[in-house]
Structures are given as C-alpha cells and as structure tokens.
C-alpha cells in the first residue's frame, strides 16, 4: 500500500505530536509514523513531567530560547487540550557557600534568557514556600510547573488526528530515499510505503538511525550525529504523600552532571517521584529500560534523607527513561538541540538530541519547525481548526462533588469505579479503550485513564479491565497485550468452550 502526503513526521513523542498538531492548523496533508503500539511510549512517558523555567541553559542556545517560549505557551495549550497543569514553581537551592557561585551563574543565565519573575530568596523566605527546606539561598522561578508528559503527548496526538493528521502506529521506518522528482519515499516494517515532500525526523532515541537511513550523518555545523542514551531511573511514591512538597526543589547542578541531579518531584497527580539517576548505557540498546539494584538503593537512601517520615510501603513503583544525548560519556553535560533543515538533503528536517527541556520546549519547537516547513509549503490556515478538546482537564475524581453529580446523570458510567486507588471511573476507562488512534494495549488504557497507577498497581482493576475488554470488546486471551508486540499477558484459556 502506498500513501502520499505533503509532510511525513517520523516519531510520535511529545515533539513529533506537537509538530503534528501545529501543522494540522494549515492546509497540507500530514502523516505521523510511530514504531510503537501507541504515541509517547519511549522518552515522552518516562520523565519527571517538569516544565522548566529556562534558567539552566546557556544564553543564546535553542534550549534556552525554546524552553522559555515553550513554557509561556503551555497555559493556553493545556487549556485548549484539557491537560492538567500545576504552576507550582521551583526552588533551585544552594545548600552551602560552595553552591553560591553556581546559583549566581544560574540567576545571570536566567535573566539573560528572559525567564520571567526570577528572584533569589533567603532561607526564611524559602521556608514560607516549602516548610523545612534546607539551604542558605534559592532561586525562585514561578513559571516552573508540572504536567503529565504522557497526558500532553496523547492529547496533542488525538487533537492532531481530529484535525486531519493520519497516524500509523506499529510502523517502524526501514528505508528513506529521495527520488529524482525530489520526493521522499519511506518504507516501514509492516510493508507499507509513504511518499512525502517534507520529512521531519522527530524520532528521539532513534533519530540518528533515521538520519543515517537518509544518508545524513553530520549536522549542518559539522556535529557528529550519534545518540548516547543515558538512563534515568525513578521511584514513584504513594500519593498519600501528596502535599508534602509544595513546589519543585532542585539542587544547583554541577557543570559536568549529565542530568539535573536526583531530586523529589511532586507530580500533577499527587505522587512524588524520586530521581532521575544518570547513567550512560550502551548505544546499541537505547531502549533498555531496566531498573538496577545499585541505583534503586541510591534512590531509596536519598528518599529517606529527603523525606524522613517515609515508609517502605510508600515506594510503589519503579521506571526508567533514556535521554537521547548528543554528548558522549567522557564529556557529560548537555549539547544544544539540533533542529534544522539539513544542508545535504533538502526538505529533510532533523531534530536530534531533544532531551530535557524537550517537553517544555515542544510547542515552541513545533512553531520553529512550522516556519521551516513554510519555506516549502505556503501556510494557509484551515477554516475549521478544532483547537479545543471537549471534556475536562484531569480526572473525574478531581471535579467537585456537584460537578460529579451532574455528569453522572448524563453519563451513568462515571459512577462505576474501576481503579480503586486512583478513583478512575468506567467512563474514563471506556474513553481510553475507544481512543481515536486505535491503540488497544493495556498500557494505552493506563496512560489515558491512569488506572493501575496507584498503590495496588493494578491488583484491583486488572480483572475488571479484563472483563470489560472481553465482554464489551470481544477480546480473547491472546488479544491482551501490555505494550509492545510480544508482551502478551496471557497464554490462553484455562478451558476452552465447545470443542
């Protein structure tokens, strides 16, 4: 089957989907190819969910510019897409005198980057925001926020799809060629072929592999295009601790740190994350998401230090994500984003090394890419662009009791609870199952409805979800897949029906 589009986006992470949504405003045919069974399954669902203010990045870099402008775009975007956002601010803390030069540097950097409303606080003022916090001084950045990174990715994708972008899941790109007419031809793992005028490489951990397929092995400024995956492991803590952290608290980072240091992050859903660690892993296995014993021990120790009241039972889950870094282990630190139409291949737009602050920058990256696209395709705004999504931000359990009562009368399934720990309703689960992208794995339901993310980790909801999928959607035991192909949950029935 051969498809023809104006624009082909490779990679369904938050960046690829932000681009898709932005381009869907205009008259052009757009398709997005994603190799996993759903969008956001790699880096985008595996991070702290923090929207950074922009103080951490060298002035004049893309990371600095795009994070500041991306951050500023988030309120409107989240309001349109009905994505929950909490502007809780951040205290970047100097523990002692040794941290003060670094703090000063960050403040200067933040000012140069035009980060709004920055101020340095003393410990007394810090206590007012976060009682009990240690440290002699901190930068208070009120524009820092938390969000659901997978929630945003999915919302961007489903809105882009509603606005005409076609999605091809489970479609891994195998070959990229440019023919004499100047069009790109891309073939995928399921035997399909796509033809496009513009190719946008937003493949994250796989971005250099894709670039290599297209024959582009160097950046426009001669940078070596190679991704060095750097794993970050996390613990998720029970949401009974919700409220312990009123804001984000980060240490002043060291220059050679590969990440921003192990810290506590309150999530938008009331959990606390501890992490991420930072450990380079072999480039051949960029999708090795194992959690490891020594790191888990480190994280546990840090958690006990930072939260003295924590109990063993508060540690409810681990996960890991891999940063698509452009800097090798010997160098550490961070390189700037590469976002460019490649010199060697006209119409091929490379996005390489989009690690933190990729989430924050996503809407700004989308505009930058749109501007590059506009050099090839005139931007004519669609008359009927559906900017707003229906529904409510967050979950049913976030609503007031009056609003819940009203909605239950309209949709009775809001009354039936499927996930006891997070109080997720059957209607929310049903909406997740019936998502417009057609993703039908257990992880797809979980990332949309959030069932299974609580302290019992699916103990209560799993049999209920199994029943719903079987009785109402005809699932047989072989149809239940966790995430990727081959991650089947079951091997069959206990007993078969009529022979």
């Amino acid at each position, binding site marked *: 089957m051969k498809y023809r589009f104006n624009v082909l986006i490779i990679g369904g992470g938050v960046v690829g989907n932000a681009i898709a949504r932005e381009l869907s405003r205009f008259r052009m045919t757009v398709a997005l190819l994603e190799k996993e069974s759903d969008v956001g399954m790699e880096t985008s669902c595996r991070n702290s969910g923090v929207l950074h203010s922009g103080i951490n990045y060298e002035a004049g870099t893309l990371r600095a510019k795009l994070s500041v402008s991306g951050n500023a775009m988030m309120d409107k975007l989240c309001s349109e897409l009905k994505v929950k956002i909490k502007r809780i601010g951040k205290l970047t803390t100097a523990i002692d005198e040794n941290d003060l030069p670094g703090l000063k540097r960050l403040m200067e950097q933040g000012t140069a980057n035009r980060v709004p409303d920055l101020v340095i606080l003393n410990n007394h003022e810090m206590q007012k925001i976060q009682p009990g916090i240690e440290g002699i001084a901190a930068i208070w950045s009120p524009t820092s926020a938390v969000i659901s990174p997978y929630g945003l990715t999915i919302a961007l994708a489903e809105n882009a799809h509603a606005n005409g972008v076609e999605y091809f899941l489970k479609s891994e790109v195998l070959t990229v060629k440019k023919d004499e007419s100047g069009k790109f031809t891309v073939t995928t793992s399921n035997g399909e072929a796509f033809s496009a005028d513009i190719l946008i490489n937003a493949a994250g951990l796989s971005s250099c592999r894709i670039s290599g397929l297209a024959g582009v092995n160097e950046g426009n400024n001669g940078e070596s295009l190679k991704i060095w995956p750097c794993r970050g492991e996390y613990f998720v803590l029970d949401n009974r601790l919700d409220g312990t952290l009123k804001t984000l608290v980060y240490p002043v980072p060291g220059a050679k740190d590969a990440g921003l240091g192990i810290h506590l992050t309150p999530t938008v859903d009331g959990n606390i994350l501890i992490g991420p660690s930072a450990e380079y892993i072999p480039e051949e296995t960029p999708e090795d998401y194992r959690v490891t014993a020594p790191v888990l021990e480190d994280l546990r120790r840090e958690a006990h230090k930072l939260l003295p009241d924590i109990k063993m039972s508060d540690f409810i889950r681990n996960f890991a994500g891999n940063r698509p870094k452009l800097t090798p282990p010997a160098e550490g630190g961070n390189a700037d984003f590469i976002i460019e139409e490649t010199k060697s291949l006209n119409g091929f737009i490379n996005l390489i090394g989009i690690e933190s602050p990729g989430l924050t920058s996503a809407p700004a990256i989308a505009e930058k890419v749109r501007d590059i696209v506009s050099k090839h395709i005139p931007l004519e705004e669609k008359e009927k662009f559906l900017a707003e999504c229906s529904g409510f931000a967050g979950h049913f359990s976030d609503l007031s*009791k009056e609003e819940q009562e009203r909605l239950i009368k309209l949709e009775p399934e809001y009354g039936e*609870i499927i996930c006891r720990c997070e109080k997720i309703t059957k209607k929310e689960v049903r909406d997740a199952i019936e998502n417009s992208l057609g993703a039908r794995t257990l992880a797809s339901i979980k990332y949309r409805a959030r069932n299974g993310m609580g302290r019992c980790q*699916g103990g209560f909801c799993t049999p209920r979800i199994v029943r719903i999928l079987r009785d109402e959607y005809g699932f047989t035991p072989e149809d239940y897949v966790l995430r990727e192909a081959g991650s089947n949950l*079951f091997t069959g029935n206990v007993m078969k029906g009529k022979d």
Partner: protein
Amino acid sequence: MIREKHDLVIIGGGPAGLAAAAAAKETGCNDILLIERDRILGGILNQCIHDGFGVHAFNEALSGPEYADRFIQKIRGLSIQVMDKTIVLDLSKDKVLCVSRMGEIKEIKAKAVVLAMGCRERTRGALAIPGHRPAGVYTAGTVQNLVNLENIMPGKHVVILGSGDIGLIMARRLTLEGAKVEAVFEVLPYSSGLQRNIQQCLEDYGIPLHLSTTVIDIYGPKGRLEGVTVAQVDDERKPVKGTERFVSCDTLLLSVGLIPENELTREAGIVMCDVTQGADVDDRCMTKLPGVFACGNVLHVHDLVDFVSMEAERAGKSAALYVAGKLAISGKEIPVRPGKNVRYVVPQRIKQGDEVSLAFRVTSPMRDRIIEVCDGGSVLMSRKEARMHPAEMVWVDMGKLDIGKIDSLEVRVR
C-alpha cells in the same frame, strides 16, 4: 446531593462484612446497609475454590464460595439490605460516607460503621525488584482471580516468590491446570504457609521450596517474562554474591504479603496500629472513633476465615449495641501489649471486659512453649502450646476480666 440515613453501614460484603451484618441484625439492629463493590457478595472467598474453610465454624472442610454462601443465605434470610457494585469514596469523622455506583453518587449518614474492607496484595513495585517490567509478573491473588473466575491462564512456566498460603495454593492450582511450576522461593529461612499446604501443594507435585532465597532480577527484554535471577540471602536478607542463578520461566507469581486496605480508615483520621497496619481497637472491635468498628483482614491479616467470622460477629453485635445506646464509650481502658516473642496482639485495648479474646502472632516458629497473659508482675493466665508459627494466629480466651482491678495486659511466650 442525595443523602440517605442508616443506623448501621457495613463497608465490605466479604466474610467479615457478612458475619457482622448477620450478628448486628440478630442483636436487634433493623436498619443495616451492607455496601459491596463487586457484583457478588463473598469477597475474596469467591476466588478461593480450595477447601479447608469452616473446619472450626461448621466442622466441615468447605471451599471458599460454599463458606460464603452459608452467610449469604443467612443475610438473605434476615432481609438485610445490600448495595452492590458500589464503592465508598470517603468516610468522614462524622460517619458520613460518600458512595458511588453506576448512575449515582450519594452521601449516607450512619450512626455506626463497621469497616470490613479486607486487604490488598504487596506488589512488585513495593519490593523494587530490579530488571525489566515485562508482561507475566503477577500477584498470586490476581492470578487466582483470573484462573478461577475468568477462565484465563496467565502462563505455562511459573516461578513463585513467597511461600505464603496463596502462593502455595496457586502452585497446586496451576499445576493441575497444566502449567509447569518450576519452584517456590522464600526469602525467610522458614515458610510462611501452613505445613499442610507445603505437603499437599509442593511436595506432592515435586515442586522444590528454596528457603532463604529471593528473586533479584527480572528478565524480559522483548515484552514478556523470560526468566528471573534468584540468589540466596544472608541474615539481613541481602543477596549473597556467587549464589545467583538464572531460572527460565514465563510467569512470576508474587505471594509476598497482604496489606490491610485502610485508605478510608486513615482518611477519616482513625488511629492506626503500626504493626498490624489496621485500626487500633478495643475488645468490642471499636476503633478510637466512637461508633466505628473494624473486623476481619482490614483489622489484621487472618489465616483462617472461621476466626474472621468470629471477630466480625463481635464487631456486628457491638455496633448494634452502640446504635441502641447500650455500649459504654467512656471510662477506664486497659492497654494490651505484645511481650517477648509476640509480634502483636489484637485488641490493643480492653474496655468492657466481657468474654475477652486476644489474638496474637509469634515472632518466629517455636515449639513447646508457655503462653502467659500478665498484668505487671502477676500472671493472669498461662497455657502450654506444643507448636506455634508466625503464619498461624493464636487465640487466647480470657473470659470475663475485671477492668477495675487490672492496670495493663501483656501477652508473652516463654
């Protein structure tokens, strides 16, 4: 919002809730509402199709569903109102419950509440086992539910972590349904299951039990479990280098502990007991919030359902007396403490002193000991016990106690 009123609301329609409801009705409380979140009554018993239930209560060895049915028929006969497929979202200090079901959310004001919510299983996340997070890792109870109620086989080649009874029972169940159970690994130097189950679930089928061994890594790079790494552990439960070995399997069952489900209890600000993870109660099963009672697994994890029913009957009876204004609320209370070799005692306080029954667990397996219940220096009761094990709850009947003459109680084993 719709507001209803009931004299007594019981949260949970499993064995504890059912027995409490029947006892409350028989004690004269006529306005009872039993709230159950599932579509059927019986709680966890519905999936416990093995026998051994009711040996004490009915002198029969019944399966879980049969045991539950005895009580379900009883409450039907007593015309007790049941609200099924309903979850309690919260419980306030004023005994107002917010409940939710298909098409409806409402508030219920109760004079008395019996907490009978049971417990949940400890998860892989709580153990933080390193490795991948593939499909094929389950808690034993979830697999029990899927195999016994939903006709689903989770896998063909099974490793079980945890020698608690649920793990042992599932080892046999899966074997009889055609799976290969490779081994059961237990981190402690002794099994936490009943000896009968070790014989009849493991030894009968040649399934080895490896003590002082735990799973230290989960391997499943392609999405489904392919095997686990196990290692022996030392006295501090730390893996011993050099003892690691890989065990192929496609299913890992975790039977690593039950946790009383006290979210509602905590949200209502009710005082908890750290050791049992359940509410702190007196000899009438009343918590420190007057009019709120707790019984069954939500109070402390039981091993025999017969004792759950017994405890729940006491809670139900007390709740009915409370509604009728016949239960003493204030007055002297004597603390009950665990002494040497005892991990915990329930109840944690004695207030009334009629028919006091103390339930406790020992800290490690022991033989030929003497149980003593003391008040300071004087021994009020002592009993010889040939065999005691942490997995088997021990009951001591103290009969009537004169609260006025006692300062405190300690249960110890020497």
